C-alpha cells in the first residue's frame, strides 16, 4: 500500500468522493466556530482597539496564501519527476484558491492599515511581498489557461512554479532590504504570536484550522473537477480521432 496509489485518478476519485463529506463536516465544525468566536466573543485589545478582530481573517488567509504556493511547488515537482497527472491537476486546482487567499490578505491588510498607519496602502515589505505573490499566482494561472495541450501546460506551469518559487523568495528578501528601517515593527502578523494572549490566540488557531480545512475541501472539489475536465478532453480528442 503505497501513497502513490492515490495518484491514480480513479483511485483518487473514489477516495476523495468518500472523504469529501467528512472534510466538509470538519470545515464547518472549525471554520464557523472559529470565525464566530473571533468576531463576537473576543475582547477589545488595548493596543489595537477593536481592529484585533481583523486578524481572524487576515492571518489565516495570509498563512494559506504562502502555504498553497508551497503545496503547488511540491505538486509540480511530483508531476515533473513522477508524471502523476493528479498531482499536476491538483496544482492547477490550488492556484485560484491561493490567489483568492492572497487577495483577502491584501484587502484585509489595507483595511487594517488604514486606522493603524493612516493610509490604505503602505509599501511595507510584507504587503509588497504579498502583492508580488499575487502577480505570481496570476501569471501561473494565465499560463495554464493559455496552453491548449494539458500535458504541455502541466509541464510548463510546473517549470514556471519552480523558477517562480525561487524568485518569490528572492523578492521577499529584496523587499525587506529595500524598505528596511522605515516601518520597523509595524508589521501585523504572526511575529507577535508570543505576545498575543490566549484569549486571542485560541480563536485564531481555530480560524487558521478552519481556513485550512476550507482549502482542503475546495482543493478536493476542484481537483475532482479538473480530473473530470481532463478526462472529458481526452474523450473528445479520441472521438475526433476515430
Amino acid at each position, binding site marked *: 500500500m503505497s501513497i502513490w496509489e492515490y495518484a491514480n485518478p480513479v483511485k483518487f476519485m473514489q477516495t476523495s468522493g468518500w472523504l469529501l463529506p467528512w472534510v466538509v463536516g470538519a470545515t464547518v465544525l472549525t471554520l464557523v466556530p472559529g470565525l464566530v468566536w473571533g468576531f463576537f466573543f473576543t475582547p477589545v485589545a488595548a493596543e489595537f482597539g477593536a481592529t484585533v478582530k481583523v486578524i481572524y481573517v487576515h492571518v489565516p*488567509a495570509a498563512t494559506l496564501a504562502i502555504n498553497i504556493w508551497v503545496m503547488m511547488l511540491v505538486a509540480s515537482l511530483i508531476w515533473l519527476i513522477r508524471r502523476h497527472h493528479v498531482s499536476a491537476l491538483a496544482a492547477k486546482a490550488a492556484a485560484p*484558491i491561493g490567489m483568492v487567499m492572497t487577495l483577502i490578505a491584501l484587502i484585509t491588510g489595507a483595511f487594517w492599515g488604514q486606522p493603524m498607519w493612516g493610509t490604505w496602502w503602505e509599501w511595507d515589505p510584507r504587503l509588497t511581498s504579498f502583492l508580488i505573490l499575487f502577480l505570481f499566482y496570476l501569471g501561473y494561472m494565465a499560463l495554464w489557461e493559455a496552453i491548449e495541450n494539458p500535458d504541455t501546460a502541466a509541464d510548463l506551469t510546473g517549470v514556471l512554479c519552480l523558477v517562480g518559487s525561487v524568485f518569490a523568495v528572492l523578492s521577499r528578501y529584496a523587499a525587506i532590504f529595500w524598505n528596511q528601517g522605515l516601518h520597523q515593527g509595524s508589521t501585523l502578523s504572526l511575529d507577535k504570536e508570543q505576545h498575543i494572549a490566549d484569549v486571542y490566540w485560541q480563536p485564531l488557531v481555530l480560524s487558521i484550522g478552519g481556513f485550512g480545512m476550507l482549502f482542503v475541501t*475546495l482543493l478536493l472539489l*476542484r481537483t475532482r*473537477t479538473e480530473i473530470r475536465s481532463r478526462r*472529458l478532453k481526452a*474523450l473528445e480528442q479520441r472521438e475526433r480521432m476515430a
Partner: protein
Amino acid sequence: MMPEFGKYTVTILGSWGATLALLAGLILVTLMRGAKVKRALKAQEERMKTDG
C-alpha cells in the same frame, strides 16, 4: 448581539465583508464549474457509449 467596534466599524466590517464575499464567490465558482464539467462529462460518456 452585535459587538461594538467604535471608530473601527469600517475597518472590521469591511475586511470581514470582503473576506466572506470573496470566499463565497470562490466556493460558488468551484461548485458551479464542478457541476458543469460533471454534466458535460456524463453527456460525452453517454454519447460515446451509444455511438459504439
